[in-house]
């Protein structure tokens, strides 16, 4: 026995078997206890409840939903809402972040100071506090009659933001968005794939211009075909009685989440972008200047692309992390994935199944987001000697 314990290979196998065994034991204990508890409460487990009607509604949905629809559909609604919120606020956070990052490396002390103050304030306060703050501010704005006005077409009041919109069906907007995604994909492919590397620059330019014009034409055609009959194409919010009619209403809940996540995320992304600029050696921009490029050309053609490539892995982590923070929706009452799951748990009592769906959903979204972004990173990252500064 002792001699067996002295053998390294035996000890290795034993500890691995022990480790896995303990984990399996834990899971089995959990499963058995859960089964006894559920049996004691007389509850049926399994995913059959997904087919049942919910009996409750949601305040915001991208797809049609009413109280007769099933749990499966309400979960889909929550998932789409989370993705929608994530897409908008991550994009805005990137824009803010790049702006702040540029301010902090601009060389103008005033811009640097303001960038620093922004980052220090918004990065050092909890996201939830910021969300509560924005929500309190947005819901105590003036009544619709005294709404804040932006050029007579957009309004902001205590019931949300009212933006001009188009009287078209949601489906045609969806198709146009898909066409946009395909166009962006084709454009990136055209720019970075090796098979187009030898194409003459002016032909390449013509192709990419053609791509964008094609998309614009297609989008206009789609929206035109999808317009709702007997209404003007452009819908501008107007005050009728006590409230606004027409246009697109952005609820204070959604607006809060968008503002909070993009302002908070912008501060973090700003720091990453700054680190990226600092990682680009001085020699690069000096070489650019020496070749006769203007400051603007050096910036857009040399420093920015290099900086983004240098911090791409950090940005990917940040995006995954920011997407997870969309769960603050529940704090202000925005119907996101987490809130839908939590309400469903309260209403149906199928706790374990719903938690499994929640975790599975986040794992799938985050892994696929990381996978796609890592492919992008692989495609654009600096190879070999380009890294030299």
């Amino acid at each position, binding site marked *: 026995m002792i001699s067996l314990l002295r053998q390294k290979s035996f000890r290795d196998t034993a500890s*691995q078997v022990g*480790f*896995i065994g303990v984990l399996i034991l834990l899971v089995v204990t959990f499963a058995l*206890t859960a089964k006894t508890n559920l049996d004691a409460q007389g509850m049926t487990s399994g995913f059959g409840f997904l087919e049942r009607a919910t009996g409750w509604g949601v305040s915001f949905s991208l797809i049609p939903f009413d109280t007769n629809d099933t749990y499966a559909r309400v979960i889909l609604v929550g998932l789409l809402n989370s993705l929608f919120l994530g897409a908008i606020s991550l994009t805005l956070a990137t824009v803010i972040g790049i702006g702040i990052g540029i301010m902090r490396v601009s060389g*103008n002390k005033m811009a640097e100071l303001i960038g620093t103050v922004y980052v220090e304030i918004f990065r*050092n306060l909890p996201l939830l506090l910021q969300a509560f703050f924005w929500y*309190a501010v947005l819901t105590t704005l003036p009544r619709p009659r005294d709404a804040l006005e932006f050029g007579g077409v957009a309004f902001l009041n205590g019931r949300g933001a009212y933006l001009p919109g188009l009287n078209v069906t949601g489906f045609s907007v969806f198709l146009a968005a898909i066409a946009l995604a395909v166009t962006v994909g084709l454009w990136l492919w055209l720019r970075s794939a090796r098979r187009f590397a030898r194409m003459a620059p002016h032909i390449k330019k013509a192709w990419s211009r053609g791509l964008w014009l094609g998309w614009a034409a297609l989008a206009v055609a789609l929206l035109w075909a999808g317009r709702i009959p007997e209404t003007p194409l452009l819908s501008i919010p107007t005050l009728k009685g006590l409230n606004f009619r027409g246009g697109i209403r952005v609820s204070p809940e959604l607006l809060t989440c968008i503002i909070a996540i993009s302002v908070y995320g912008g501060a973090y992304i700003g720091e990453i972008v700054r680190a990226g600029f600092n990682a680009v050696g001085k020699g690069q921009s000096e070489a650019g200047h020496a070749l006769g490029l203007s400051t603007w050309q050096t910036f857009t053609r040399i420093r920015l692309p290099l900086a983004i490539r240098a911090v791409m892995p950090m940005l990917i982590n940040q995006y995954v992390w920011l997407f997870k923070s969309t769960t603050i929706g529940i704090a202000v009452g925005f119907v996101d994935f987490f809130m839908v799951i939590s309400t469903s748990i309260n209403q149906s009592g199928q706790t374990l199944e719903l938690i499994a769906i929640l975790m599975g959903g986040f794992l799938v979204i985050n892994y696929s987001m990381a996978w796609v972004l890592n492919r992008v990173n692989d495609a654009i990252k600096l190879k070999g000697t380009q890294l030299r500064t």
Partner: protein
Amino acid sequence: MDATLPRQTRLRALRTDYFSTRLDTLVTLGFGLLAAWVLWSLFDWGVLHAVWSAENREACGHGAEGACWAVIDARWRLIFFGLYPFEEQWRSALACAVIVLTGGASCAPWFWTARRLAALWVAGFVTFYVLMRGGIFGLTEVSEQNWGGLSLTIFIFASVTLLGMPLAIVFALLRRSQLPWIARTMGVIIDAIRSLPLLSIMFTFAIVLPFVLPGWMIGDKLHRVIAGYALFFACYQAEIIRGGIQSLPGGQEEAAQALGLGYWHRIGHIILPQAFRNALPATINQLVITFKETSLVVIIGFFEILASGNAAYGNSEWNFAHVEVYAFVGLIYFVFVFALSRYGAYLERRMAVAER
């Protein structure tokens, strides 16, 4: 700007910093005006037109031009101490001070060995817990349900860190274990937990665990949430420590092996001390995030400082004063987080000097 420079040079420096080109001048003036306007509005609102004392509460309310700091004057005890019994609130304040002092002391290099740091924190934490909980030394007992405000925030933060740090070391060592099955399983667990939102983990531990745990293991809801948070923290921190280990030159471990040191000696005396040193900035950053995200327990229904802030303006008397309350609570968070992150930046500079 360096004040010892001659005046001419200082002026020139001013010019290159702010007005080097026409665009630069424009940017400086534009941002300068913006900053001046924001600062002036804040000053005008927060100082000039502000109402400071709860006695003249009638002066604020709807239509008032300035801040109503009277709400803080009237409700600061609620914000700081939550539902803690009124006569015992000095204990809550003292307990917070103990943890802050412990944190301050652990910034001193003398404490930077594993044993001293652990002893310091265990002592600090026990003092905190005894002061808060009472029941001995003639202190009346206050159960954890009545804890609230800043001390609950600090309690959650301190216990998550104290539980999570050793767990993180174990996770990191398991993940880089030579044994493939252990390393791979640990990798899957860590990656899975890292890609879940903290809120969903807290929620699971608070709501779901009672279903799947045998009765004697269920425990208090607060303790379960802390356990869940500690697990989440440990998974992030484990990756930071692993990064620190990976940044060590391979020769370190090989040399220790060649000298005949056993696994635990290699880990405890060669690898981990250096790995922690390399991982220090990232660790401080993680602590900052952990402190901020303690606020998420509001959603699970705990009465920490953000929730007590919500309660402070959540009655008809003060319901207009949300901006003031959030500014005050924000300031408290800011003081802690800013101090921690500045300290992290200082450590980073200090290490950069040592590397040179």
